[in-house]
Structures are given as structure tokens and as C-alpha cells.
């Protein structure tokens, strides 16, 4: 059965399983070889698979993604590591104008199954540009899939589903959760991907939200780093007699709005929690969908708890920039005030 792994260890194990399953899987990135990546997510893979499959690249993010596209056109499945969230922007053009559109602009003739792994979000006391949450910039771009695991099991499963997917995937890894431990069972994803339609089935499953905690009174929608926060807030709220449901979106593109709408209809109250700035963010999209599809079930406006419309601050202030239990509970109080 399963073993206990950290999220980083689970993604590492998932990468290893994908590389063993398919010799076309290549890893590309800065310092991912002998060093094993700055977060050690590729630890040991260079030693076991060699420099041809675990490629240290020049320090040029656009170049990494651009050459990965070319390799994908020849049938390879490159898994690119962007070292930190804030350094993805040199590759933004390649991702949004080339990677996202190549399949469509070729009339379906070209597949570019590139996975771009991005350690993201804050809370680790890092210096500037190392704590950002740019995920919705990519969720806003047709042609890309965007997902983010919150647990070791999902880290293990979803990285393999992302690699098997025929579409490009932006895979956001909540770096503050890298060392959280959990049970990981390898059977389910292995069985799934061994099926003839496994890559498509895995792609579809990757887009499904997960109910992390069932509840009846209020829906807390979270993903990646804020899932644990939502669960902690739910435990505190329970002491006040509020039974919160926590939805782990897992995917931002596609967004499993059915799961959110269904929960909203049940609870009538929705709070969305993410680290990215709330303005034009995932919370705005979710709020809009809930308003469109569950308006008459709502007892209160949908509220958002997230980052401010200000540059990510120095680490001594990030505890007040990021969503925290007090701000989540404050939002829960406010949806109850109606």
C-alpha cells in the first residue's frame, strides 16, 4: 500500500514513475541536475536517469520553454522547472503565444504536451520575487491547463496526469507545503494511466475539484497553499458551531464550477481563499460563476480573502499580506452577518 511522503517527495516519486513509464519524458530546468533543484524536487533523478533526461539548462526561461516546445514537436514530453514563481515572466511569451496556441493554430496537427512546473506562493520568509502567485495569468489563457496539488497524494497523481496529458499544463507547486507529509498510494494513478485512454481520463480527472472537508453551513473554496489554511479555519469555526465545507479546486483551468456551485447551493455562503491578489483573481471568477448559477440559493455575497493589490512585501510583513485564519474567520463572520 501507500507510504508517507512529503509533497516534494511525492512529486519526485511521480516524476520518477512518469520517466520509468515513458522514455520520452525529459526534465529541463536550472539546477535540476546534480543539485536536484533548489527545492530538491528532482533529487536523485539525474543520478538515475542521466544528464540526457534530466537536463540542466542555460539560465534563460524563455529558452527553456521555447526549446521544450520544439522537443515536444518531435514527440518528447518535456517537464520544465521554473525555479521560482517570480521568474516565469521571461517565459510568459513562449507559454501564452506559442505553447498555448500551437495545437489550435496547427488545426490539431501538432501536440505540445509540455509541463511547466512552478514552485509558487509565499509564507517561507523569502526575498523579493520568490513568493508570488501568478497562476490566474495562465488560467486566463485558452489552450493551457492549470492545476495545483495541495496534498502529497495529489502531488504524486497530478504530476503524472499532467505529464500524460496531451495538452500543455502549468503545474503550480505550493512551496510552503513542500514538506507537509501524507499518505501516498501509487496504485490508482498507475492503473488509470495504463489504460488505453488513460492520458485523456487522467487529464479530465486532474480538472475535478475535491471536497477536502464536508460541511453544511459555509463553503470555503481554496487551492494549493490555502487548502490547509481553510481546513484549519474550518476546525476553529466548528468550535463556534459553524460547519464549513472546504473545496480543494485542484485545477484552475478547467475550473470545476459544478463542484463549487453544488456546494454553494447547499450552504448558501461562499468564501474564496487564495494568496494571489483578489483583484481580477480566481475568487472573482468563482464569485461570478456562483452568482450566475446559484444566485437564488445565496444567503450572502460571495467574499474573497486574498493578497492585496500591492507588490508582495518583505518577508517580515508577509503574514499580514497573506490570507490567515483571522481573515478567513472574519469573512465567515461577514457572510453570517447577512
Amino acid at each position, binding site marked *: 500500500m501507500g507510504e508517507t511522503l512529503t509533497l516534494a517527495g511525492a512529486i519526485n516519486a511521480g516524476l520518477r514513475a512518469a520517466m520509468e513509464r515513458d522514455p520520452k519524458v525529459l526534465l529541463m530546468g536550472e539546477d535540476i541536475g546534480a543539485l536536484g533543484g533548489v527545492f530538491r524536487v528532482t533529487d536523485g533523478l539525474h543520478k538515475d536517469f542521466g544528464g540526457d533526461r534530466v537536463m540542466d539548462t542555460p539560465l534563460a526561461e524563455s529558452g527553456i520553454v*521555447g526549446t*521544450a*516546445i*520544439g522537443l515536444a514537436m518531435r514527440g518528447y514530453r518535456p517537464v520544465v522547472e521554473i525555479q521560482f514563481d517570480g521568474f516565469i515572466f521571461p517565459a510568459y511569451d513562449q507559454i501564452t503565444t*506559442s505553447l498555448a496556441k500551437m*495545437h489550435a*493554430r*496547427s488545426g*490539431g496537427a501538432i501536440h505540445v504536451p509540455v509541463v511547466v512546473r512552478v514552485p509558487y506562493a509565499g509564507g517561507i520568509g523569502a526575498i523579493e520575487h520568490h513568493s508570488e502567485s501568478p497562476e490566474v495569468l495562465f488560467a486566463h489563457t485558452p489552450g493551457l491547463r492549470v492545476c495545483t496539488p495541495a496534498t502529497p497524494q495529489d502531488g504524486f497523481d497530478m504530476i503524472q496526469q499532467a505529464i500524460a*496529458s496531451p495538452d500543455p499544463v502549468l503545474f503550480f507547486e505550493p512551496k510552503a507545503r513542500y514538506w507537509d507529509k501524507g499518505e501516498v498510494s501509487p496504485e490508482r494513478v498507475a492503473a488509470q494511466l495504463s489504460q488505453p485512454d488513460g492520458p485523456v481520463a487522467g487529464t479530465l480527472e486532474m480538472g475535478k475539484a475535491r471536497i477536502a472537508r464536508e460541511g453544511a453551513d459555509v463553503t470555503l473554496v481554496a487551492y494549493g497553499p490555502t487548502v490547509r489554511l481553510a481546513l484549519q479555519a474550518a476546525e476553529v469555526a466548528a468550535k463556534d458551531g459553524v460547519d464549513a465545507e472546504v473545496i480543494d479546486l485542484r485545477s484552475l483551468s478547467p475550473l470545476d464550477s459544478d463542484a463549487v456551485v453544488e456546494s454553494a447551493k447547499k450552504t448558501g455562503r461562499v468564501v474564496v481563499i487564495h494568496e494571489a491578489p483578489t483583484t481580477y483573481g480566481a475568487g472573482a471568477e468563482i464569485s461570478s460563476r456562483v452568482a450566475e448559477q446559484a444566485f437564488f440559493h445565496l444567503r450572502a455575497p460571495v467574499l474573497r480573502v486574498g493578497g492585496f493589490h500591492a507588490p508582495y512585501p518583505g518577508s517580515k510583513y508577509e503574514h499580514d499580506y497573506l490570507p490567515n485564519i483571522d481573515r478567513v474567520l472574519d469573512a465567515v463572520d461577514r457572510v453570517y452577518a447577512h
Partner: protein
Amino acid sequence: MDAVGPLSDDGLVRLLTHTGERVEHDFFSPYAAALTPEDLRGFYRAMSLTRAFDNEAMSLQRQGELGLWVQSLGQEAAQIGSGAAMRDPDFAFPSYREHGVAFQRGVDLPEMLQIFRGLKHGAWEPSAHNFHLYTLVIGAHTLHATGYAMGMDRDGLVASGDPARDGAVMCYFGDGATAQGDVNEALVFSTVYNAPVVFFCQNNQFAISEPATRQSKVPLAERGKGVGMPSIRVDGNDVLASYAVSNWALQYARSGAGPVFVEAFTYRMGAHTTSDDPTRYRSKADEAYWAERDPISRLVTHLRAIDELPDDFVAEVENEGKDLARRTRETVRAWEPGPSVGIFENAYAAPHATVEAERAWFERFEGSFVEAH
């Protein structure tokens, strides 16, 4: 010309002078030595048909049949010479003006006008021609070309010694693109991974209105030298020299020796696109100077000098050009857009819930109008 830097003609490899006189080059002459008069007539035909198509597409745009046209006028020698040097296993990544290369790779030219009529973004299957889609994002494809070449190397399609197997990537871009980060990254990646790429830069002297001197202080081929690859400047209006240099460069890359930078010095005789107005930024005198260096008339002069261009062949090519133009016109005018629901096709390779929901909504919405009639 007393031009400097990227506009100078210093060190250009040349086998035909601008008056059509055949001259020798110590290193590159052997790489054109196998060309027969029939091959040269083939170049003449390819250049002429490309121009006939180009002229017809220009007219179609002026008649409102195309939203935009991008002329290749004046760059036929660089494109046909380099395109002819490619063999079947080679793969080309064009920018968006490489109609002559498209012709060499067997793309049916009228089909490409689907792009400029607003019907498709890609109008041919790249793997059927080893000719990638046009890329409008300046320089972005140079990285795709490099990655593709890295893949060919991994797949054992380089340096095997088997000419039917060994290939290289021919990557086209312009003088403006050399200022792009992506192009410079492609030069870096291709050298450190020893990828079989020929970077074929057509320096047509203008990036829309900006002269090449706004992109670089030095000749563009210096970019390649800076990262440690062989770099050559060739007269891009000389089809023989363009062929010879490309032939050498492709052999070098196919052999596993690594990438090459070729700067083909040429002149964009037309506008950047049909939306451009070159009278605002260049002189009639410049245009007249380059009209005397027209790549097709240069080859014609040479072929006539060696008595290898019979009048009936010229007439035949002219008729072929007229046929191509007529077929182009008829093809374009017959195209009608299909149902708009096609915009959802191929957004993703696997079903995507948002796309499916929006497609279903759009179909219901469209259907509601039909029912109302």
C-alpha cells in the same frame, strides 16, 4: 554604397555579381559545383513562380480579397537558394515571409492564403512538408527550431553518416529578429547542446521602417560568432551563393558539428506588408539601386550569358506563372468561412470543461436564431 555595420556589404560570399557575371569563391564554389544548367533553370522557375504568386496575392489584397499580404519580393534568391539546399530529412522553421521556401518544400502556395483571408492560422500540415507553420511572433520560433533540432539529434537523425537519414533544421528570421531575446537564447542553446540548426537570417535591411542599424551596431553575422558558431555573410540576391553557403551549412549541421549562422544580405523591394508605406522612410534612389540588383534578373543575365535560357523555356515559365496566378485567384475567391462553432475546435487536445460549456452555449444561441426564422 558606403553603408556601415549591418548595412555594409563587407565580406559577402558571392558567385554572381550584380551584373550577372559568374565569379569564384575559394571556399564556397565547390558547394555549387554540382549544379547543372537545368538546376539553374529550376531556380529561375521557382523564383519566377514565387514572384508570380506574390504579385497575385498583392492584387488580391488590394481587391479586398485578403486582409493582409506580406510580399517576398526581392528575397527570392535567398529563399530559393537556401530552400533548394535542403533535403528531405531537413526541417524548416519559417518566419512569415518565406513563400519561396514554402514553394521549395512543396506547399501549395494558394493554400497559404487561408491565413491572410482570415480563415486559419496555419494552412498546411508541417510534417507533410517538413516545413513548420509561419510564426508571427518575431523570433519565437528560433527556440522551437532549436528544440526540434535537439530532438533530431536525440533521435539519431544527425551524424549517422547516412545521407538519407541525416538532417538539420533550417531556421529563417529577419534582421529585426536578431535584437530579440529569443533569438539570442536560441543561439546559446543551440551551441551548448550542439544542435543541428542553420540560422538563416535574411537581412532585408528593414524591420518595417527601422533600418538594420537600429538592431545592431555590427554585421548581423557577428551574433553567431559571439556564441562560437561558424558565421557567414552571403549575398542574398545571388541564388548560387545562397545555395552554396546553405549547402555547406546544412552539411556541417547534419554531420553533428553544430549550428551555423548565415546572414543573407538582401533587400525588401516591397513594403513590409500591405499596411506599410515605405515612401515615409526610404528614398527612391535606394529603391532604384536595389532594383538594379533584382535577384531574378541577375540569374537571367547569367543564364543568357552561358546560353542556357531558351526563349521557349522563359515563355513556359511565364505561362506557368499566369496559371498559378489564375488558380490562386479562383481558389481564394471560392473560399467561404465554415460554421463559427469551429473556433472551439482544437483549443485543447483533450476535452476541457470550460470550452465544452461555451461551445454548447454558442450552439444553442446560434440555433435560437435559426428557429426564429
